[in-house]
């Protein structure tokens, strides 16, 4: 992982631009003036304490909720002002893996994955089935699992199927909400490898919410820290750690975090590719 080689955001194409985003529920201010950029091809992790509004921010970006004020642009367009057809075209360009999977409980695994492709209403069905099986294999499951129902899956499998569904249309951008929460360390290591591989193969841009420091260290190009209703910092992890703020100190400089941060490579990496190659971590 050769993280610090990232160019600054303004030199690269920003595919998500959030400006002065405010979200209030009644009197309860959740997000207060958020600015966030996500560049093409990077992995941006959003971290923050429980209940700090990470998922709320994600829901604003994908247009599940309307912000109280502020603007959001994804691929240069504001989801709130688009006509339905344009919005649909935009939605086909991103995938979202929900925290608890959000698989359709009445559909089998393969039908869950095939659903976004079937919704296009243009592709022949046996192609869709083959492609769904391929996606299933891509996330490390086998054809044996295709006919299982979501209620029969383990937590790790649900996450994988959810990812396969999010990737069904091979979007340019995927949002992962707590992708490794509740997985055992082995499974989350596998997941990290999987995301890296997919990123290399499909050229994904990833926006990830995570609590898991190991995943954070292993995958992120940049980290955005959400606390006190604001983004405290958005920079490569190495720089974020240096920001002086009680939350960041507690979060990154605690004993647990120190252990995880040891995995961060030395500052002078060999080979400055903007995208980390998969493999060791």
């Amino acid at each position, binding site marked *: 992982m050769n993280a610090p080689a990232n160019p600054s955001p303004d030199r690269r194409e920003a595919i998500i631009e959030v400006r002065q985003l405010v979200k209030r529920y009644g009197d309860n201010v959740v997000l207060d003036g958020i600015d966030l950029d996500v560049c093409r091809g990077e992995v941006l992790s959003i971290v923050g304490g429980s209940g700090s509004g990470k998922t709320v921010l994600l829901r604003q970006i994908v247009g599940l909720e309307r912000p109280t004020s502020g603007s959001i642009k994804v691929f240069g367009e504001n989801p709130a002002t688009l006509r339905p057809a344009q919005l649909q075209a935009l939605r*086909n360009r991103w995938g979202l893996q929900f925290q608890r999977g959000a698989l359709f409980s009445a559909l089998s695994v*393969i039908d869950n994955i095939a659903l976004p492709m079937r919704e296009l209403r*243009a592709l*022949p069905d046996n192609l869709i089935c*083959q492609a769904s099986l391929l996606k299933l294999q*891509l996330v490390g499951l086998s054809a044996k699992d295709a006919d299982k129902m*979501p209620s029969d899956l383990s937590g790790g499998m649900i996450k994988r199927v959810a990812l396969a569904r999010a990737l069904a249309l091979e979007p340019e951008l995927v949002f992962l909400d707590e992708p490794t929460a509740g997985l055992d360390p082995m499974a989350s290591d596998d997941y990290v490898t999987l995301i890296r591989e997919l990123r290399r193969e499909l050229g994904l841009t990833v926006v990830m919410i995570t609590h898991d420091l190991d995943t954070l260290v292993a995958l992120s190009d940049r980290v955005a820290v959400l606390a006190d209703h604001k983004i405290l910092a958005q920079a490569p992890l190495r720089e974020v750690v240096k920001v002086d703020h009680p939350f960041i100190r507690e979060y990154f400089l605690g004993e647990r975090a120190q252990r995880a941060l040891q995995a961060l490579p030395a500052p002078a990496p060999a080979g400055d590719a903007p995208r980390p190659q998969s493999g060791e971590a």
Partner: protein
Amino acid sequence: MDRQATPAVEISRQDGACSIALQGDWTALALAGCHEARGLRARLHALAQAPEHATWSLAGVNRLDHIGAQLIWQAWNNKMPAHVDLNDGQRRVFDRIVGLRPEGWKKRMVDRFNPVTILGASLLSLFAQLAIGVTMLGQLTFDLLRFARAPQRGPWREISANIFNVGYKALGITALVGFLIGVVLSYLSANQLRTYGASTFIVNILGMAVIRELGPLLAAILVAGRSGSAITAQIGVMRVTEELDAMSVMGISHGFRLIMPRVIALAVSMPLLVAWTDLLALLGGMTAARLQLDISYAFFLRQLPDAVPVANLWLGLGKGVVFGILIALTACHFGLRIKPNTQSLGQGTTASVVTAITVVIIADAIFAILFKDVGL
């Protein structure tokens, strides 16, 4: 980048050799946007078959995803053509497709409709349900005994919450329906009675029908639709969210904390709702009788005790208790049997309401036979 370039095929023939160049975006979205996506594979397939040694070039392809690659791969008859020009990224995509192991999976077909198996399955299911119902009744008896032995440790809070939900909140709808049915009944009978000059018998007809039969039945059907479905859905969602399992793990008995409070709540609320429905239905009937037949309220009320023996009122209220228990048991039974998926939740709730209403009507028929000599 933003606009998807339509997938296209370019064919050139030179000296008997045929070269096929694919161009544009071969992605799911581009294919979906292209009208001939379905025909494209057949066309490619024909091309792949006819000229034996065609050269394929994918150099002009901007973007290739797994779906596009799959389409091309199927056109190639699931094997690499001899002469093909791929770049590294494209080769990796095809490598993945080559590595696809679809063994152990084939498309599931929906079972054909077969009346014999369906009849058999429903009969078996009926017996199974009855057996479970009997078990549940036994469990309920034990729970009630436990409750009677130590009432101070009973689920009072659940009982009172359920009485509020199934009883108090149903007052509005039962009042409305009761009143309207009273009006309708009175209106329809009025014409017939006037023809025979037996107008005053409206009191007998209304009183008997409403207090003995209609009041309990109306209340029961409304409650079955309203609270029966709610109970089933509530318990069903508890299954979906594993709350039932959480209760089991903590040693909290489903029977004692979920079923019994609901049964007690309905057994308490139903007779009250029946009385309330009776009252409103009679009020409606009385109003209509006054308008149609000029029968005064005072006369109606004076006549009522003579026309309807009080045994009918007790019978009606007793029916209410039994119907309440039956509705609660049916609803809980179906709620506990819901599997953790949305489809089962829908089916379970529907089945619960339909069964509850059927059971109530069957019970009503049994009541009619058992008590044919009482209060008539």
